[in-house]
């Protein structure tokens, strides 16, 4: 289709002309690549165009790469879009609550602009969907700690102090992830690490549309809507978390939520092996031998919850964390891998051994792997939730007084 572009038309376009040009460059580059079979050059042009679009839409407003800044930028862009479309702010808040993005609304930078009833609704959503994990020490053990005697273990385990945070009660489901996909999560480039932009176009489902690997035509099957989302790489998990105003949990945070360390009489923290206790009970967890050979609904095993009410930490799907694989291992027992791996924890529906699905077992996977048994859940620090930030500041002031 040919369009006569004059200055008036350019002026009246809903986007500025450089943006329009960048947008037009994407199909043009791909068409050129197709004609000349110079795919590398074509793809570079297309990615550059997409990159400019993303920067133009969000990047100008966002600063550093921190999750907090990204999340705020995402919200700011949404607010800007809402203003353009003359959408009432109340509707936008409702939409965000419906999409499960309550955590963004509770950011200290944003919460002050909300009406009391909107803030209350966001806090209610946070309480319903996330479990509060208090700050404190947690012991991180090396991979082969079970082969060590007590003295050796005492020398090699590390105590890590974790700040208080909220952790999703359940792994992210296909249904929740669908909202991210339908909101254009794969096109909002500020949600993604800049290094991974060229790969984002390749994160497609079985029909070639953007989305988890095992979806078809851009959505999951109906019977799997309540199952944890799988077939997503570490970067997709991180992008979802940013979109939702959250982040991936670190290894110590993840372990603390399940092992629930208790410090008594100055002794080292006493930690659980499984969220419910120290022995594996196959009726509480979905691992090999306890059911079907596939993921199941995340809401089916309430008795397997941790003390804090976090469900499905063990079994069903492994969970990505933000920590690198092998950081707790001793130097002489380090595992070398072809590419740097990210830590996954908790075991999955096909995990064979009891010794590989407890809370202290760490496995790893390439951050670009989109496996059938790896999902994730999100976390958000107390410091990123307005009401908790205010209360902790007040406590500090009271203590100082």
């Amino acid at each position, binding site marked *: 289709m040919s369009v006569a572009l004059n200055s008036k038309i350019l002026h009246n376009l809903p986007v500025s002309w450089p943006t329009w040009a960048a947008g037009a460059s994407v199909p043009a580059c791909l068409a050129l690549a197709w004609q000349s079979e110079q795919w590398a050059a074509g793809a570079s042009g297309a990615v550059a165009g997409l990159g400019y679009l993303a920067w133009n839409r969000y990047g100008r407003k966002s600063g550093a790469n921190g999750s907090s800044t990204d999340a705020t930028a995402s919200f700011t862009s949404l607010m800007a879009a809402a203003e353009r479309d003359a959408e009432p702010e109340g509707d936008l808040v409702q939409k965000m609550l419906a999409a499960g993005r309550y955590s963004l609304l509770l950011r200290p930078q944003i919460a002050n602009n909300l009406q009391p009833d909107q803030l209350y609704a966001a806090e209610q959503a946070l309480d319903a969907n996330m479990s509060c994990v208090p700050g404190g020490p947690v012991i991180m053990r090396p991979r082969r700690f079970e082969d060590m005697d007590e003295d050796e273990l005492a020398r090699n385990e590390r105590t890590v102090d974790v700040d208080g945070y909220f952790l999703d009660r359940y792994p992210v489901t296909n249904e929740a992830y669908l909202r991210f996909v339908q909101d254009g999560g794969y096109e909002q480039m500020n949600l993604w690490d800049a290094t991974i932009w060229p790969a984002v176009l390749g994160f497609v489902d079985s029909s070639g549309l953007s989305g988890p690997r095992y979806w078809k035509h851009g959505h999951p099957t109906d019977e799997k809507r309540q199952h944890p989302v799988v077939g997503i790489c570490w970067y997709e998990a991180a992008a979802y978390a940013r979109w939702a105003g959250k982040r991936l949990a670190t290894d110590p945070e993840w372990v603390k939520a399940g092992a629930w360390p208790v410090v008594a009489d100055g002794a080292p923290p006493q930690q659980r092996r499984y969220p419910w206790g120290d022995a594996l009970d196959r009726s509480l967890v979905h691992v090999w031998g306890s059911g079907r050979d596939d993921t199941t609904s995340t809401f089916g095993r309430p008795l397997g919850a941790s003390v804090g009410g976090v469900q499905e930490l063990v079994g069903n799907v492994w969970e990505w964390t933000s920590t690198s694989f092998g950081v707790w291992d001793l130097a002489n027992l380090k595992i070398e891998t072809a590419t740097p791996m990210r830590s996954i924890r908790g075991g999955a529906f096909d995990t064979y051994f009891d010794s590989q699905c407890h809370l202290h077992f760490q496995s*790893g996977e390439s951050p670009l792997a989109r496996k059938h048994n790896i999902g994730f859940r999100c976390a958000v620090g107390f410091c990123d939730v307005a009401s908790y930030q205010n209360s902790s500041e007040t406590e500090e002031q009271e203590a100082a007084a």
Partner: protein
Amino acid sequence: MRATGQLELDSYRLAQYTVSCPCYICGGGNNFDAELCRHCYAPMALVHQANSQKIHPRMVAAIGSSGAGKTVYLGMLADMLSKGRDDLQLLARGAFSIGLQERTMAALARCEFPAKTPNEPDRWNWVHCQILRKKLKPVELILPDLAGEALLEEIDHPNTYPVIRAFLGKCSGVLVLIDALRCQAGEADEDFRAMKLLSYLCELQADKKTGWASKAVALVFTKADQCDHCFDDPQQFARRHTPGLYVQCRERLKRHAFFAAGVAGACGYRLEGRGRVHVPLRIEPRGVVEPFHWLLEEVAR
């Protein structure tokens, strides 16, 4: 001091020595109390069980090049089936039949692979088992864990390992294990070795009706967990990465099928005194039972 009754028993035993006891695998004569066949080193328990329980087990082989994953595959299969979770259940006959399962599982639980199977046949693990099937007759099976290097040695220099020749001659079906990772990396030697194995089988029993051309052959790409697309379509994977094997199967075998299997979700290397050791990062079996199930159906036909 010996009791009188025992002297009578000893004389009875002496009489037994005069009768040769044929090995169940190679048919060579042995003393009745021999533990291993003196010709092929197969356990003599196989023939004692067959005689005392009046059963005639069928034989199925798992063959493949060294490092293809035969020990891990067989050990994992035996353990999965012995837990009776699927339609198939495995009941080991004799303590010696549990050795392979025990050794493999102990290593995998520690996130290690079992040590390489030694070339000496007297150190191989043999599994004699009964496979129970829902609503179908049980099947008696003998499944040895053959050493890959010994297999290739026998193929290159026939009669080096008489037990291999004798056993493969009696087998009703075979699982050919092929390292999918090496195939994907473009290492043609894996294709050649698999072709050699098939060619050896076809020459061993060349008859079109009773030979290997009409016996069941399951071709299993192992370590497929590390090249995920192999699971999507193993036949397509074979066509792309092992074209020689694919053509040979199509032209020479009437009953064959391609499968993908994996046991470790991911792997890495640990530095030890003897160098880099390949270690699994977790154990999550996938596609292990399916090829065996198919082969059993074909064998039991």
